[in-house]
């Protein structure tokens, strides 16, 4: 273990221990915050229930589907906008202000249009996630070295062949960066939609635990979700490091 990792682990342990002590000494109300040990126990209890596991699976499935669709749509839209600079210039204010919108407020409309189930949640997740892939693709295509464009010309590659064989591989780092962000955005949108109105999913479970005053369960489920997002991000970081892309 590197000294930096060791320092971080010690800091984390100290934080958890002090939180445990504060809660055990009743310096905060048990309805506000429960000790970390109780959170872990509540998480373990929740994660052996088939219904909770199904909810977690539903959330993971919705996020995965959102990211997969967003990756395809985002890359395609990025290529299109890069090819049409005037359209890109006109769309810039929309792209810049896109993430200011609580798009999950449109969830009820999507339920009516797409029906009850995972489809409106996946659609909301895709809406949120696609923009970061688009931005990543645009940034990547902007930084394709001039020599690569010359090589494509010298070999008289068609637009599609040049894209598939040269441009997309050369900006894979930026696209992967966009997809990494897309995972976070998809989580945000999916969980927010589940919080709002969805009949299932881990977000719905957390909201239900909160409204029914099952605070220990709420914290247990939150801990599970935080660990899940951290694991997903760590895996993505490792993938980026493996293929030689900076981790952050």
């Amino acid at each position, binding site marked *: 273990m590197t000294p930096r990792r060791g320092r971080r682990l010690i800091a984390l342990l100290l934080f958890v221990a002090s939180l445990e002590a504060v809660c055990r000494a009743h310096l905060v109300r048990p309805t506000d915050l429960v000790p970390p040990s109780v959170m872990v126990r509540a998480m373990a209890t929740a994660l052996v229930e088939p219904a909770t596991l199904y909810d977690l699976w539903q959330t993971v499935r919705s996020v995965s589907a959102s990211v997969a669709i967003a990756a395809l749509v985002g890359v395609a839209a990025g290529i299109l906008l890069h090819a049409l600079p005037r359209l890109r210039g006109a769309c810039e204010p929309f792209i810049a202000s896109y993430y200011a919108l*609580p798009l999950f407020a449109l969830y009820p409309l999507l339920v009516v249009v797409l029906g009850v189930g995972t489809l409106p949640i996946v659609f909301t997740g895709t809406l949120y996630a696609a923009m970061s892939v688009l931005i990543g693709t645009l940034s990547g295509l902007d930084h394709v070295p001039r020599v690569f464009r010359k090589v494509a010309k010298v070999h008289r590659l068609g637009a599609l062949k040049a894209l598939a064989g040269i441009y997309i591989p050369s900006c894979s780092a930026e696209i992967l960066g966009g997809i990494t962000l897309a995972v976070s955005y998809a989580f945000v949108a999916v969980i927010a939609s589940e919080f709002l109105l969805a009949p299932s999913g881990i977000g719905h479970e957390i909201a239900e635990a909160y409204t029914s005053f099952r605070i220990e369960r709420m914290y247990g489920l*939150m801990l599970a979700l935080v660990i899940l997002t*951290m694991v997903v991000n760590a895996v993505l970081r490792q993938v980026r490091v493996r293929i030689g892309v900076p981790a952050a």
Partner: protein
Amino acid sequence: MMPKNVQRALDAALVCLALALVWQIASCRLGGDLLPGPWQTLQKIGELIAEPRFQRDLAATANAYAIALVIAMAGGLGLGVICGGWKRIGDEVEPLLLALIATPKVMLYPIILLFFGLGDAAKIFFGLLHGLPPVVIVMANALRTLRPIYRKVAQSMGLSRASFALHVLIPAVTPEAVASLRICFALTLLGVLVGEMFASTRGLGHLLFASIGTNDQATIMAVTLLLFGFAGAGSSLLIAFGRRLGKAAP
């Protein structure tokens, strides 16, 4: 030939028109009750603006947003300078902030609600959670990637630390500061609205949440369009400002 900025504005207007057309077609196909069209939505905005209750909600959101934006920008710039200037602090703080950016913050609302209660403090905190971390990361990165030649020139000219900060450092990182302000502008608004949806009894976010409950599509579309207009106008101004700074930069 048309000036570039006029052409850009015309192009943006054309994109708006195309989007409005698609929206109108979707509204015709789905029905005006389910998806109110652009004209209906504009009329609804007019009606809402005349309502005292909406004015109160608008004022509440504007107030919380202004406070959150100022704190997020000032705090983000300050922390960014610390993280960028002192590598050891940056190494410890930045991974935590990156993890926070990647966490779906909306799930933290029960905790924030428990600690801050219903009201302005909760939604301002939500705004900070969304808006502050990206500013820190961008600013720290800007300081860390400052071209070494700037320091060398300052050293060879014997500039004091204050003069270096005032005449070299601040102008050099201003474009990144404006870029981070643009990110902060959008994300803080989202944070405040999310805070209002879950942890407030006033504001546009709360109005949206209440409209979702009553399936009032006209209000949902009107508030969403209003927010998009505000965010789009703000972002456009900041983009134009950033471009001007980019041109002015050495």
